[in-house]
């Protein structure tokens, strides 16, 4: 739409303001993660981190040293605060962050890999060799993806218990693969349908095998789509909570369940909690930023491009 110069500037300002408000909780968490537990409670808050000149060890001592803190408080309000990475250190080394992180990585990567392995051939079949039942199959797959997790949690829990899969990464991988297969099929099918038929035809005349056809003709064309599909599966698996919470305990708990244990920590470890939260979401947030364009296709299972 055509706008006057001032209308444009006003709209841009409004847009920026709204975006910053929406993003604020994230900035706030980041800032909190860089403060000491004591500073985290201060109001009005210090907003601008400055590099710390003390070593991290000294700051850790400060946490427990009441006298220093009292003195600090007397200094009054400052908009600046000394950034500390002590909370990140504590989260990684003292707060058992490692095990859930490894669990999450294993569950996410393996389940995504198996989902692609099962889903890509199916997408291939449904895209290039459709028959009368293909449409039904595709729609049925949507209904499995949209099945409310709460509707199947009781039998999944009991089955996992009886098969000794409770609190194992294997159990989680089996469930998450099921969550991702329909997504892979729908997304990959929509990308495969974009492959020009001429190319396939040419390959067939040359008599390439199906595997060659996929490897040399199709894969180079759908590689970005394949990448996006894998990334989306990982995002969903990384962030899933309901199954993880009900199927795992201390051994196989992923990050989502680990983070939920801060639920009752009310206020005591706000800075530590913020640091752990930041670490837990960082990989997926960065991956999502890079895959913004494909996100829409993925979220709608290929229905919108």
């Amino acid at each position, binding site marked *: 739409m*055509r706008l006057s110069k001032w209308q444009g500037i006003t709209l841009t300002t409004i847009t920026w303001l709204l975006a910053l408000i929406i993003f604020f909780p994230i900035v706030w968490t980041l800032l909190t993660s860089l403060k000491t537990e004591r500073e*985290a409670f201060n109001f009005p808050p210090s907003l601008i981190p400055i590099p710390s000149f003390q070593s991290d060890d000294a700051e850790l001592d400060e946490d427990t040293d009441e006298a220093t803190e009292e003195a600090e408080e007397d200094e009054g309000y400052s908009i600046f605060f000394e950034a500390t990475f002590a909370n990140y250190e504590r989260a990684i080394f003292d707060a058992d962050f490692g095990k859930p992180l490894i669990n999450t990585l294993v569950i996410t990567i393996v389940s995504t890999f198996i989902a692609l392995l099962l889903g890509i*051939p199916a997408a291939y079949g449904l895209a290039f060799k459709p028959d009368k039942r293909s449409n039904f199959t595709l729609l049925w*797959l949507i209904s499995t993806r949209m099945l*409310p*997790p709460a509707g199947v949690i009781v039998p999944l829990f009991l089955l996992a218990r009886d098969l000794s899969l409770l609190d194992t990464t294997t159990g989680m991988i089996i469930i998450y693969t*099921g969550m991702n297969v329909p997504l892979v099929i729908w997304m990959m099918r929509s990308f495969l349908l974009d492959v020009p038929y001429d190319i396939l035809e040419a390959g067939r005349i040359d008599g390439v095998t199906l595997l060659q056809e996929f490897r040399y003709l199709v894969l180079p064309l759908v590689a970005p789509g394949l990448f996006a599909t894998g990334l989306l599966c990982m995002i969903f698996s990384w962030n899933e909570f309901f199954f993880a919470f009900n199927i795992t305990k201390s051994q196989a708990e992923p990050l989502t369940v680990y983070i939920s244990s*801060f639920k009752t920590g009310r206020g005591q470890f706000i800075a530590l909690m913020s640091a752990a939260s930041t670490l837990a979401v960082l990989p*997926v947030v960065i991956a999502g930023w890079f895959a913004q364009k494909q996100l829409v296709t993925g979220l709608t299972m290929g229905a*919108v491009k």
Partner: protein
Amino acid sequence: MTPTTSTSSRTEKPKRGDQISDKLLRRSLIWPAIIYMIIVTQVPLLFTLRFSLERWNMNRPDRRAFTGLDNFIDVITDASFWTIIGNTFVLTGAVVLITFVLGLTFALLLNREFIGRGIVRTLLITPFLIMPTVSAIVWKNVLLDPSFGFLSKLVESVGFPTPDFLGQYPMVSVIVIVVWQWTPFMMLILLAGLQSLSHEQLEASQIDGANPFHILRYIVIPHLRRYIEIAVLMEILFILSVFGVIFITTTGGPGIQTTNLSYAIYDEAFSSRDIGDASTMGIYAIILANIVVAVFVQVLRRGSEEGVTT
């Protein structure tokens, strides 16, 4: 591409043998995935159905018995079940409505060139990428907590009494958090729709003297119809199953004020250990979701018939 010397049968007209091998090929491509999905989704579904017909509390396994439709009647004649259904509808309805309005607003604002557009878009989609448990924990402890939360202190500092958001307005708080998470979803899909709208069409209508509201009402919204349908229906399905935010912020309370169907099923199965009733509620949840899925399927079908992207 590797050229091969073998003659391909595909260059000739398909013979009967080819048709059979083609069929075999299709099956071997598709069936592994289908079988896997049947095992991990349809088998549990059948079990849920079976358990829903049983009286079975894990605290009293000796009393386990087949009771037919008793659970179904017990559950719907229980007043709290209707409160839970009501909560589920209020939460889902409010979130979908608010995220639609906000998502459309953001999509319209982003559908023009301006300084830092890419950055703004990145900032706006981030809440959707953050794991829901982290969002819930952060909102609960860092923003809404009555003693330490930033928003509570902000309200306090302007002279109002310290609010206890989650205690006083539990459902509103949950809605706000879920809206924060899901607005980017709506925005992204609607933005994709807006970007497929031609600028010529918009400019022509502007020259014709249509005001912005009319352009939105008669040109933009109709064009976005399919995108809106897909976004709204998918979001309904996801929001019906919200669990993490409720579990972390309110554990369904106070009382059952913020208990939705998902949370109620979890509570019935793992606190009351009543497998029968939990499964019955599970079946109700599946029926509810499938009504929405049926509409969704119609939308997708219509899309493919009209030749729009499928």
